[in-house]
């Protein structure tokens, strides 16, 4: 192994650590903000670290079969792999967190991200808890809903930049000195609306409804399994945010910009969720196939005919 | 004894007259003698076909009177092929009906006499070169057909026979009138001579005669709307008779039609007429077939439909088309023979011979069902069975003449055909077996007959070359009018004769 390999492996690890840290911290911040909005003090910002660490330290005495092991493993594999293929920073010259950026593209990423959900769904299915199955059913159905405007937005971007890779889109933004959210605002709006669903915050949190479904797919996952799912969820949150920042907001040249941009973006679903009630599954599917899709279509047409 | 085409007519006719006597010697002779006769005819066919293939048309002059004054038989590759085919089919039918009315010898005797007459008549129609003899043979055929239709002497059979008789007498009358008119115009009864003199006949007269012929022979050839008798006759006649109708009688009728149009007359419109009427016949018959409840009626309508295709193909009139048409005639004889034979065993004991009672017979009568399925696959023209080739040839011919709509029509109707045949096949094998029905055990002769036909279907399907050379020659012979006239009348003036297509 030469030095470059070691550096790149270090880069992997640094990326994962960064994603984990940012993702978990955001989770804590969300709890804090939620608490403040509800006129509470709220847990400390680092609360989620405690939670995850505690969960890792718990024993995991039971399993319902090997798919329950594999489910969280799939989830974490999917999240980390997706992370590997996303440019975290677009520093000048040196890509600090480049990893495998040039080896994959958006469509690949779309599928890779689904891999996690499917893995988790399978793990949840193995446990045999009916609540898990209901949750999975709802979650997958909802996914079909929000993927449509999301893909429409991506198609608009790809058509405009004539590139399907994230780095390509970022290069386009750098070259034109603008952000895609200004270049094709309709696509951005569609993507943003889809993002509400992607994060599973209210009003699209019917999948994990804790009171009705006893937290849905995760209901039989305790201890380490839950910890892995939370880890994967945190990394995924970061992945999605970083992806959004990369393709819509011109990427981030340093960590601070990254944190600022992702945080601002993250506040959209969070704040929207806090003040929202809950949609039923078919309502949310219809919602996604309504205005967001229309806006997405308009976005594509805008790119095709105006740009 | 020198083998000559006369044997085709003389031997079976003689046998028919001698059989009552022979039956007095031994009962079994009534069954064996027809077989021997047909075997002999088969031998004759082999010898003559070889001759014909090698040396061309044989013209047999009866009693030394040369044409155009005498009666002659023309054994061309075309007529020879048809005669041989009929002989072969007659042999198969004989095998099939060998044990017919096993217990009672008197009906069997009657049956075999009539059968011999029928063979004589149909082969005579094909072979004769004389228009009046043509009529005579037609009458022999018709009368024996009426009798055979009513063979069971039950109410339905009698009704069917009466219908047949009614329509058939129309046919006879028209044809007779036509022959008379023709004779007044051309002054001869020899077909070749008529053909030579035909262009002198005034047009309106020619057309009138043609129309009379067309209607009269159209009845025998089951052309719509003249074919009302056919379904009843097919379904009410004893099962071997149904086969005989499909394999011999109809073929003879079509032959007559073709001979009239191709050789005797030189009217262009007749070809288009053939196409149009063939198409209508095809459509009407197949559409009627799909709604039939009785298996035999279904087969009858299907048979009519096939004849429609044959007429279309002849109507196209190119060498390829005629080739396809003759091929289809052959296939139809073989396949429809198999279908009738196996089908009548299937419905032997079902009420009204209805299809709906056939569920699950595939288990009870595996061999018969297999034969029927094979026949069904073949008749709708699925490769690699015999029916496919003839269909392909006809379609190619039609395509070469830019008749795409016609092809579409034939193919569209084929889909209908597939529906009703596969309905039966599906029901045979995969319906829920009904209880209590008694299976009719097929006779050995019947099994051998059906096996022979099945083997022919497979062999022709996999290797059509066994039959195509004969058919090619037949097609050439039919189309080459001048050659026909020349072989009958070596001194005739051929300047006015042109091959129409």
């Amino acid at each position: 192994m030469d030095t470059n390999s070691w550096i790149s492996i270090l880069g992997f690890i640094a990326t994962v650590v960064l994603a984990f840290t940012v993702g978990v911290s955001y989770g804590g911040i969300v709890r804090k903000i939620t608490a403040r909005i509800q006129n509470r003090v709220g847990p400390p910002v680092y609360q989620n670290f405690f939670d995850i660490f505690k969960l890792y330290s718990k024993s995991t005495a039971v399993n319902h079969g090997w798919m329950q092991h594999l489910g969280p493993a799939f989830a974490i594999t999917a999240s980390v792999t997706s992370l590997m293929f996303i440019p975290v920073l677009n520093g000048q010259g040196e890509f600090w967190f480049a990893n495998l950026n040039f080896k994959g593209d958006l469509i690949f990423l779309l599928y890779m991200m689904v891999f996690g959900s499917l893995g988790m769904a399978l793990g949840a299915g193995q446990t045999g808890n009916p609540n898990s199955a209901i949750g999975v059913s709802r979650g997958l159905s909802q996914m079909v809903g929000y993927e449509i405007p999301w893909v429409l937005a991506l198609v608009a971007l790809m058509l405009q930049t004539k590139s399907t890779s994230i780095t390509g889109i970022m290069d386009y933004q750098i070259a034109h000195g603008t952000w895609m959210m200004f270049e094709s605002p309709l696509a951005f709006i569609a993507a943003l609306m889809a993002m509400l669903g992607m994060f599973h915050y209210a009003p699209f949190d019917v999948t994990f409804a804790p009171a009705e479904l006893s937290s849905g797919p995760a209901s039989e996952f305790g201890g380490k399994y839950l910890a892995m799912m939370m880890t994967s969820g945190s990394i995924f949150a970061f992945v999605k945010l970083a992806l959004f920042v990369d393709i819509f907001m011109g990427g981030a040249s340093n960590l601070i910009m990254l944190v600022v941009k992702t945080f601002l973006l993250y506040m959209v679903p969070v704040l929207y969720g806090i003040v929202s009630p809950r949609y039923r599954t078919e309502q949310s599917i219809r919602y996604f196939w309504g205005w967001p899709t229309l806006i997405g279509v308009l976005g594509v047409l805008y790119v095709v005919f105006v740009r | 004894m020198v083998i000559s085409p006369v044997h085709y007519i003389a031997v079976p006719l003689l046998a028919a007259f001698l059989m009552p006597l022979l039956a007095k010697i031994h009962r079994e002779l009534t069954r064996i003698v027809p077989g021997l006769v047909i075997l002999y005819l088969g031998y004759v066919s082999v010898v003559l076909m070889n001759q014909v293939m090698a040396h061309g048309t044989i013209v047999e002059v009866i009693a030394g009177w040369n044409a155009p004054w005498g009666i002659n038989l023309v054994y061309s590759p075309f007529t020879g092929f048809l005669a041989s085919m009929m002989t072969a089919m007659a042999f198969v039918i004989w095998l099939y009906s060998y044990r017919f009315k096993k217990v009672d010898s008197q009906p069997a005797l009657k049956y075999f006499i009539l059968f011999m007459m029928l063979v004589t008549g149909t082969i005579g129609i094909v072979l004769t070169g004389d228009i009046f003899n043509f009529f005579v043979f037609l009458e022999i055929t018709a009368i024996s057909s009426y009798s055979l239709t009513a063979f069971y002497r039950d109410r339905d059979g009698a009704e069917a026979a009466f219908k047949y008789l009614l329509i058939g007498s129309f046919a006879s009358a028209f044809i007779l009138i036509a022959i008379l008119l023709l004779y007044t115009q051309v002054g001869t009864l020899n077909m070749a001579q008529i053909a030579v003199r035909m262009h002198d006949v005034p047009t309106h007269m020619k057309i009138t005669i043609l129309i009379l012929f067309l209607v009269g022979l159209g009845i025998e050839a089951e052309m719509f709307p003249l074919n009302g008798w056919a379904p009843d006759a097919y379904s009410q006649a004893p099962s071997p008779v149904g086969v005989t109708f499909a394999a011999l009688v109809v073929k003879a009728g079509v032959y007559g039609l073709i001979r009239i149009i191709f050789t005797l007359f030189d009217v262009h419109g007749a070809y288009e007429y053939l196409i149009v009427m063939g198409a209508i016949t095809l459509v009407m018959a197949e559409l009627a077939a799909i709604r039939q409840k009785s298996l035999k009626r279904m087969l009858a309508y299907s048979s009519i439909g096939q004849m429609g295709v044959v007429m279309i193909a002849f109507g196209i009139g190119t060498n390829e088309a005629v080739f396809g048409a003759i091929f289809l005639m052959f296939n139809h004889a073989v396949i429809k023979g198999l279908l009738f034979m196996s089908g009548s065993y299937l419905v032997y004991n079902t009420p009204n011979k209805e299809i709906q009672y056939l569920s699950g017979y595939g288990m009870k009568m595996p061999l018969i069902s297999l034969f029927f399925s094979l026949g069904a696959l073949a008749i709708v023209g699925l490769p690699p069975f015999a029916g496919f080739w003839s269909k392909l040839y006809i379609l190619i011919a039609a395509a070469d003449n830019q008749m795409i709509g016609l092809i579409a029509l034939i193919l569209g109707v084929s889909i209908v055909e597939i529906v009703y045949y596969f309905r039966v096949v599906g029901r045979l094998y995969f319906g829920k077996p009904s209880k209590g029905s008694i299976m009719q055990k097929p006779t050995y002769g019947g099994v051998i007959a059906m096996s022979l036909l099945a083997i022919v279907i497979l062999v022709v399907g996999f290797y059509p070359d066994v039959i195509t050379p004969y058919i090619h020659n037949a097609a050439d012979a039919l189309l080459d009018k001048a050659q026909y006239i020349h072989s009958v009348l070596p001194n005739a003036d051929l300047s006015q004769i042109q091959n129409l297509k």
Partner: protein
Amino acid sequence: MPNDKNSQKIVDIIKNAARKHSLFVLAYGTGCGAIEIPPTMTSRYDAERFGIRGMATPRQADVLLVTGYLATKTLKRVIRAYEQMQDPKYVIGFGSCTINGGMYWDSYNTIKLLDKYIPVDVYINGCMPRPEAVITGFIELQKLIAEGKADGATKYKENLDWYRANQKKVIKNWNMPDYNW
């Protein structure tokens, strides 16, 4: 095994610190005490400050909060839920009913002392204990955890026969499969 702070390994100290600050509660609303949970969790008292958080299923939870009296019928379910929880796990007995039966002290089908059936780490006295008391109870539990003394689950495992005997004494038809923790 002595469980004072000095004998803890450094790993345990870290783990216990994390556990202390992150208590996932399975609030088993058996009795009237359940009505005190919402005020405890919501804005007035806000137990989430201490890392206390409600969880939906026993698999995910650390703390079993038994809120009030337990009929024998309910006890069976509580035991099942308790045994489905993953180690380390703690039990908080909530209200007088879990201590001495409370106002149901002479009921023919209400147990009076929860500790005999499942190991209770902390009792919260009162009928009802107010949210302040609940929070105090949790803080007490946190202290115990930090000191490594909240070893109810260990005790339960060690004295399982005794617990089982007690449980089977009131639950006659013991048709539960063997669970694990």
